Each structure stands twice: as structure tokens, then as C-alpha cells.
């Protein structure tokens, strides 16, 4: 059984800025669960499109009941592939992201299309779709519900991270580039702070400091 999720939103930035920020969005305050980022393939096609593959390693955060059921899952990180096509002529960026491991437990695939508009150059439209499924018999539904909830939470963090990268690029203090409420933003920030605090409490490799 596969859960399908789809949403559209407008980003108040030019497509050029959005695409540049896309490459520079890690690290950001909302991506503490993303541990490593690597470009493992890149090619400019004959028709001037940029194909790239990024490999990301993320922590695998499970709720308590899942930890008890899958204790080995706790020690292994999640590897994620993000393939993308930048088409500067049509002003579109298409990304496809999916997890390489832990797929029996849960498979999350996401397709995003960032589309620039000639009529409204100051805005970029983002359409996202996700497919979430689990093959564990008997636990499928709760795992999928959890997966969907975590995915939605990660989507919010991902957008906050992109906004943050956009603001850095534009040399401004972080501002809301999506329609959002002040209360919502501070709640998300507190949530991110809790993740930071719990990450700090768990023994892990020391981060590199400049």
C-alpha cells in the first residue's frame, strides 16, 4: 500500500536564486539530521541541461515503539539519493529523491518541480509529490502514518532550510519567503532546537568547527 502526497506552493524568489540556493541549502539550522552531503555524478548535456546526483546520509529517527521493533535500524544511517535536472532554458528544476536502505521498513520517494515563470519572474512555483510505502506485513499502516508525519515535518524543515539558504544568498536576515505565520515559524524553530538538544545528548562523532 502506497500513500501519495501532493502539494503546490509559491516561493517568493526568482528561479535563478532558488536553483542556486538548492545547491547551498546544507547545512542549515533545520537540517541537523543531515550528516553528510556529496555530489557523486554531474554532467552537462548537449542541450545545456545539468544532471546531478547527490548522496546524503541522514540519521534515522524512529518513534519508541519502532525502536523496540527494529533495534538494528537505530544504529544504521539512512542513505538517500537525490537526482536532479536543471533546465535553464525552460527554467525548471526537477528533483527525485529516495532512500537507498531501510527500504523494507519504509520507502519514501519524492519528486519536486521548481518552475520559473516568464510572466511572474519574482516567483517560483514548487510542486511536490511523495510516495510512501512499507512492506512490513502487519505493521504497514502505523509505519506509513509515521512515515507520512515525519515526511511532512521534514518537508517543512526542507522549505525552512531553502528559505535560509536563499536569504544568505541575497545577503538579508532570514525572512519568510513562503506564506507562513509567525507562531508557526517559532514552533518549528523550537522543534528544531529540541532535535539539536537531543542530538547533542546522544554520543556521536564530533562536528568539525572552523
Amino acid at each position, binding site marked *: 500500500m502506497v500513500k501519495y502526497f501532493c502539494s503546490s506552493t509559491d516561493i517568493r524568489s526568482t528561479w*535563478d536564486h532558488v*536553483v*542556486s540556493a538548492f*545547491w*547551498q541549502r*546544507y*547545512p*542549515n*539550522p533545520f537540517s541537523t539530521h*543531515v*550528516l*553528510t*552531503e*556529496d*555530489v*557523486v555524478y*554531474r554532467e*552537462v548535456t548537449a542541450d*545545456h541541461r*545539468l*544532471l546531478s*546526483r547527490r*548522496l546524503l*546520509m541522514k540519521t534515522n529517527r524512529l518513534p519508541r515503539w519502532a525502536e523496540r521493533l527494529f533495534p538494528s535500524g537505530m544504529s544504521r544511517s539512512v*542513505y538517500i*539519493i537525490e*537526482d536532479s*535536472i*536543471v533546465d*535553464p*532554458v525552460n527554467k525548471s528544476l526537477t528533483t*527525485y529523491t*529516495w532512500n*537507498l*536502505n531501510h527500504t523494507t521498513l519504509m520507502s519514501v*520517494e519524492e*519528486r519536486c*518541480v521548481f518552475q520559473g515563470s516568464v510572466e511572474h519572474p519574482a516567483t517560483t512555483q514548487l*510542486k511536490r*509529490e511523495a510516495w510512501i510505502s512499507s512492506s512490513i506485513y502487519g505493521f504497514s499502516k502505523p509505519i506509513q502514518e509515521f512515515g507520512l508525519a515525519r515526511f511532512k515535518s521534514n518537508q517543512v524543515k526542507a522549505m525552512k532550510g531553502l528559505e*535560509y539558504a536563499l536569504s544568505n544568498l541575497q545577503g538579508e*536576515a*532570514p525572512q519568510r519567503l513562503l506564506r507562513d505565520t*509567525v507562531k508557526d*515559524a*517559532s514552533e518549528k*524553530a*523550537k522543534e*528544531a*532546537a*529540541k532535535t*539539536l*538538544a*537531543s542530538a*547533542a*545528548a546522544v554520543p556521536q562523532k564530533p*562536528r*568539525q*568547527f*572552523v
Partner: protein
Amino acid sequence: MSLSPTGLEQQVGPPGFAPLSFLSRAVFFFPEMNSVGEACTELKREYDTCFNRWFAEKFLKGDRSGDPCTESFRKYQRCVQAAIKEKEIPIDGVDFMGPNKDKPES
């Protein structure tokens, strides 16, 4: 700031200012991303710097003149591909945009 029974507790600040103060503190702690190969991080950062400049100043403007990042990419890839093999990350032979082939056009 006191230690809670569960461990460190992060104080975020008064609700109205929470997002900005948290973000400004976070910037100090997150300078750059690491590579999956610990030895490759410096090579990755060199390449990323070259790429970001080329991407914004050349690629997006339709400039098709030579790619200045070939050498730094080569060095970085040699390192990271070795790390991927060593850690047995199952990335080999995975088709570009693999699972997307089964999906309907959006």
C-alpha cells in the same frame, strides 16, 4: 541555564524572537557540510566553491565556455568514490532518476 534531568536543555529565548536568535546561534555551529568520506571533506568544499561560482556566473547565464571545475571534481570524486566502496553504500548501478520511471507525469 540549568541542566534538566534528561540532559542538556536548549533555551531558545523569548517566543517573539525565537526564530532569529536560534538561527544566529545555529550559524556559528554549522559552518560547512562534511563528506561521507572523512578524508574527502576538504576536496568536497573546494569543488563546491568552484561549482557554485560557475553555476551562477556561467551556467545559468547560458555561457557554454569551458568548465573550470574539472580538475577539482576529479580529485574529489576519486576520494569519495573510494569512500563509497569502502563503506559499501549500495549506489552502484542505480539508474539516474531510477524510480521516477514508474511514476506518471506530474
